[in-house]
């Protein structure tokens, strides 16, 4: 048992802290004030590209050397994500790059698809985005219920349907759209299709107004008889087999949920630091009730962090962590929300005025119990393991 981090990790966290403080925090506050995502041409994104961000993890079809990209531990990612979310959680999602669909393309895409869709992200000339369109107005947690459909049309496909809450959709070069080819089969009847921006029938983009996390766009759009070729279907040939392999890995260990937990921890830490600063400024630290509240927040944040790190560490060992990952996600989101709520109480009507960062965090953090599997979905997954809750 050993809970320290090494000097290299400490350095990575410090780099994240610098980036967060200098870039993420002001960008996030600006977007929140304007109640709109940072526009595509914002200099923030140009600086991202200058720093070498917004690139794909895919090494290219003929990588120069086998060891080009260092493999980084999940635990390391968690600690960096925690730090970045401390400064602004929304900006993490606003970052240019191939984003959510990247892993699916790497795992299941054909070489041609990787070249075509990830190639431009190898060394992007300008900020570029891609997105994954799964959620629909009538299908969120129950993804098997989605109704966007793909019908065979000669060699290609015709897509019809509507998507919502899709991150960066209006600015994406291409959208990977999940659609059903056979609704009777649920998830098994679904396929993913690349739809390039500008394709006829793709439209109706509407950037939603949100309570928080305003710095990235959550967008709805429609697919109205969108025609795509057979080559636009993710995977094609050996798809099923590869996908099965991918799914098996996903069911054994999960790194996404611990990341959400770590981001929740980062936001809660931000709340805690702000609460302590406020208490000092207003000479409240001698009051037992105030101190007890701060103690409660810090204790809960520490336990949430330990839960996230344990789930990430298990993933690093390639060990089953499904229950630990779900527990960390459920707990982290809940604690971050509670922390922000407690801290707002500390501020009283100063918080009520609506221009303190704790008030922003209170609005931002609610999303953490909704994205990447709601708290209820996590509890269902946990209960499946603990008491065999039927599907």
């Amino acid at each position, binding site marked *: *048992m050993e*809970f*320290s981090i*090494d000097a290299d990790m400490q350095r990575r966290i410090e780099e994240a802290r610098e980036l967060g403080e200098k870039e993420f925090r002001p960008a996030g506050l600006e977007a929140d004030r304007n109640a709109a995502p940072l526009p595509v041409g914002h200099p923030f994104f140009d600086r991202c590209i200058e720093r070498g961000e917004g690139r794909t993890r895919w090494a290219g079809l003929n990588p120069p050397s086998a060891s080009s990209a260092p493999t980084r531990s999940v635990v390391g990612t968690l600690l960096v994500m925690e730090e970045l979310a401390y400064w602004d959680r929304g900006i993490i999602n606003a970052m240019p790059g191939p984003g959510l669909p990247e892993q699916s393309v790497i795992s299941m895409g054909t070489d041609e698809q990787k070249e075509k869709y990830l190639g431009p992200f190898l060394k992007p000339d300008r900020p570029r985005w891609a997105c994954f369109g799964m959620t629909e107005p009538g299908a969120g947690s129950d993804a098997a219920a989605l109704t966007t459909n793909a019908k065979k049309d000669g060699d290609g496909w015709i897509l019809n349907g509507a998507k919502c809450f899709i991150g960066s959709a209006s600015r994406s070069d291409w959208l990977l759209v999940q659609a059903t080819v056979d609704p009777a089969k649920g998830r098994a009847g679904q396929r993913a299709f690349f739809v390039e921006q500008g394709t006829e029938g793709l439209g109706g983009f509407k950037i939603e107004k949100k309570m928080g996390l305003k710095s990235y766009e959550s967008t709805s759009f429609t697919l109205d008889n969108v025609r795509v070729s057979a080559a636009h279907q993710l995977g094609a040939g050996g798809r099923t087999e590869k996908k099965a392999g991918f799914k098996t890995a996903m069911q054994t260990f999960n790194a996404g949920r611990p990341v959400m937990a770590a981001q929740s921890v980062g936001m809660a830490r931000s709340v805690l630091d702000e609460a302590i600063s406020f208490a000092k400024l207003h000479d409240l630290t001698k009051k037992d009730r105030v101190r007890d509240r701060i103690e409660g927040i810090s204790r809960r944040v520490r336990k949430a962090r*330990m839960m996230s790190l344990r789930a990430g*560490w298990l993933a690093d060992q390639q060990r089953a962590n499904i229950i630990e990952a779900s527990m960390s996600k459920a707990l982290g989101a809940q604690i971050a929300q509670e922390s922000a709520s407690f801290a707002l109480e500390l501020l009283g009507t100063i918080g009520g005025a609506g221009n303190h960062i704790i008030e922003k965090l209170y609005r931002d953090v609610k999303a953490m119990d909704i994205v990447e599997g709601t708290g209820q979905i996590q509890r269902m997954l946990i209960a499946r393991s*603990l*008491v065999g*809750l*039927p599907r």
Partner: protein
Amino acid sequence: MNFELGDDLELVVETARKLAESELTPRLRESEATRAVSEELLSSWEEIGLADLEVPEAAGGAGLGAVARVLVNEELAAGDAGAALALDPYGPALTTILEVAGQEAASKFVASLSTRPARALLIMSEDAQVDLASDRISIDAPWVTADRADAIVVLHGDEAILLREGFTFEHVRGAGLRAAGASRLTASSAPIAARWSNPEGASRAKSRARLYYASLLIGVMRAACEFSAAYSQEREAFGKPIGHHQALAFLIAEMRIAVDAARLLVHEAAWRVDAGLPSAAPASSAWAECIDVSRTVGPNAVQILGGHGFMADYPVEKFMREARALGLLCGGFDAAIEEAGRDLVDSAFPLSLTTHGAN
């Protein structure tokens, strides 16, 4: 960052778990009724060699630290927390002498406890009224988890005070943990056999005592969770196992989350103790967290069994009582959050990570 126990500790844990399953759980009502563990149990305990866990190697013990202790205590308490206390001859009395007075004094202390089974008791001044004169001490402790002791160590401020005589036990019913005994302990101007002062050592001793009881609490809560979760899969209502109704399924998930998270805080604090890092606030915080979650975990386990849970035919009512009783020790919740919060606003604890080495 490594959550692995390592082979040696795995073995220790496995040994404790087997004993708890085969010896403690089956006799938990018997031990409670007789306010003692049986002779056979004592001898099998002595055979497996866990009794000397923290005894310095120089004195023939295993010389293990806080991590080993919290792991063993959880396993034993998952069987019977009262029996766990009854089986440990030295308890946190030993680690208090170890931290405040050092290895040599601890070895002497162990050697001085020649009766079999030995029983040394730690009293924290938070849990009793203590009046101290230069060579005499008066104590009134309304509840200690013992019916007798060969020696008493009082942890009072920066001091550890050893008593070998002049104290009396008056049996009380006890809210729980009766397998270890339950008494009011009084001493009236009892002679002090030895006393040591060491502010840093006393602080570490307090951390270790809190982690000792925290890990017992984790064990009790784990047992409560596991028992009620298993029951929820067998008992049917409205046409399906009660655990398949989301109201209970989610409750069971919450209980597991709460106990897992509290355990990680206990492990992290114990690791700090063994690594020689500042541990007072982390240990208080871990202890507070265990108490905090025990307030819901114990009663919820009873709730899952409904009317059956209220009856002594099932162990969950015992888990509920004993989880609550454990949380009253070491100053309880208020003292724990007082200490955890004391320098919170001025120090980097609790959210800074410890950096170690450079590789």
